[in-house]
């Protein structure tokens, strides 16, 4: 107990936990829309596609500054998203295939670049590898400010276009017939998801980022039938995962932060799938049993 108290007073811990909680909230909110649009894998695609951007900005600018590397990630993520959107629009290739295609090309290219960087003399590429698996301990106060600003922008946009996003997610054709351009909404929402993903790269990394986008949303969906409640719950689950995951990795030696955040989020998902009322597995089994007994009685 004492160690937990000292931990919460530790400045580094506070910074990392706050960062992870912010990341969890942001990806929870945006993830809700991704999941409802059946684009859960968009997170995976975009986060992988961000890798060449990270390495490229290091090669071109020679900087190991997190902001600059993340800017590269953002650009490369946006380009990948535009590719995916236009492939779906202009060819007969479906969303999932387009995503897999773009993602593997971008990630492969990123790995090639990473190998190239390794060969450059005097370049310590350890700073780049942290984007693959994430390294939450590198979160600085500066990063928290960037996260907060991005989060504020994203939350404001979600609130502002709440009605439009809801309509567009449920029925894009109807949205268009009302004069809300689904093209613009799709690009806006996709770009917002890209931004949310890029924010998380530093903490959980390219590979696990999609879990942060999907898990809180999937868990939240189990507990409610209202979009607003789902989005808020999802943010809450994301934040809890961030804080609990960070605490666990600080208390247990050699436990990496990113993966423990993801494990925490996955635990919430498992719990929600099993125990949520009405949508939960156990509740369904219980209902089934109850009905069977009930109808058997009636049959007698």
């Amino acid at each position: 107990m004492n160690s937990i108290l000292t931990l919460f007073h530790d400045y580094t811990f506070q910074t990392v936990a706050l960062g992870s909680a912010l990341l969890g909230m942001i990806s929870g909110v945006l993830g809700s829309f991704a999941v409802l649009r059946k684009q859960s894998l968009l997170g995976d695609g975009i986060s992988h596609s961000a890798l060449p951007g990270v390495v490229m900005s290091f090669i071109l600018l020679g900087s190991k500054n997190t902001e600059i590397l993340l800017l590269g990630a953002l650009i490369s993520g946006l380009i990948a998203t535009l590719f995916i959107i236009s492939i779906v629009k202009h060819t007969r290739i479906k969303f999932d295939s387009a995503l897999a295609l773009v993602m593997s090309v971008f990630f492969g290219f990123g790995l090639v670049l990473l190998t190239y960087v390794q060969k450059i003399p005097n370049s310590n590429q350890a700073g780049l590898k942290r984007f693959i698996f994430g390294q939450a301990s590198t979160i600085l106060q500066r990063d928290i400010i960037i996260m907060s600003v991005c989060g504020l922008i994203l939350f404001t946009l979600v609130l502002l276009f709440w009605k439009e996003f809801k309509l567009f997610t449920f029925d894009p054709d109807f949205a268009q017939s009302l004069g809300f351009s689904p093209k613009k909404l799709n690009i806006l929402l996709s770009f917002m998801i890209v931004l949310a993903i890029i924010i998380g790269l530093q903490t959980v990394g390219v590979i696990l980022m999609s879990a942060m986008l999907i898990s809180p949303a999937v868990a939240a969906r189990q507990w409610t039938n209202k979009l607003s409640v789902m989005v808020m719950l999802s943010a809450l689950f994301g934040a809890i995962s961030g804080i609990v995951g960070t605490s666990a990795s600080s208390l247990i030696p050699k436990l990496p932060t990113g993966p423990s955040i993801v494990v925490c989020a996955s635990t919430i998902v498992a719990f929600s799938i099993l125990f949520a009322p009405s949508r939960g597995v156990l509740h369904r089994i219980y209902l089934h049993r109850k009905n069977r007994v009930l109808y058997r009685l009636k049959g007698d």
Partner: protein
Amino acid sequence: MEIQQNYAVEVEDLTVAYDSKPVLWDIDLKIPKKKLMAVVGPNGAGKTTLIKAMLGLLKPVTGFVRFTDTDTKIQKLKNRIGYVPQSGSVDWDFPATVQDVVLMGCYGKLGWIRRPRQTDIELTKKMLKKVGMEDYASRQISQLSGGQQQRVFLARALAQEADVYFMDEPFKGVDAQTERAIVALLKELKEQGKTVVVVHHDLQTVPDYFDWVTLINLSIVASGPVKDVFHEENLKKTYHSSTKLLKGMV
């Protein structure tokens, strides 16, 4: 100009193609105001495509659609045009209540960013009552039956308070009682001076339900008052390719 005023929608030289295959060929169509019009044709004749093209949801290869008392594009008409899509076109497991969905009908009027107000919610309740779903307002939409889904979409379109309505198979999967209720609603809309275009499948009920009909199979076979146009010869022309197809399969 005087003549133009009698039509709600005019379609000229409209051709729509998926890839290189045309699904609608050179459609010229005038939909008179204050009529209940059925769009009838075999499967794959392009009925849904016609509706979507008229709504601007699909980009035609050539041709244009004009809503005659305005020269503005459909995108700017917002709530003048009501739309009832096929109920299978959305995922009903979306986290929303019946009221939430019907309220979406008011969004066009509101435009970007503005939130629905109390008056919109009251309008929603009124429309739910019209389709006999007032007791379901707070019901989760995943718990609705097929017929109830149709009625929710209908209520949503009513909440648009549009002048022209396009409905894509509103009778699909509804029982006889609901069908009668929907028909009564359509007739009420017509009496209010609205124009209603309905994709319809049951040929037998066309003369009872509608006063205008368009027979379509890739291109327009005939369009006019039911009593003039809806006869066996035209129907044979409309459905000939499918009978040929059936023969070919035997």
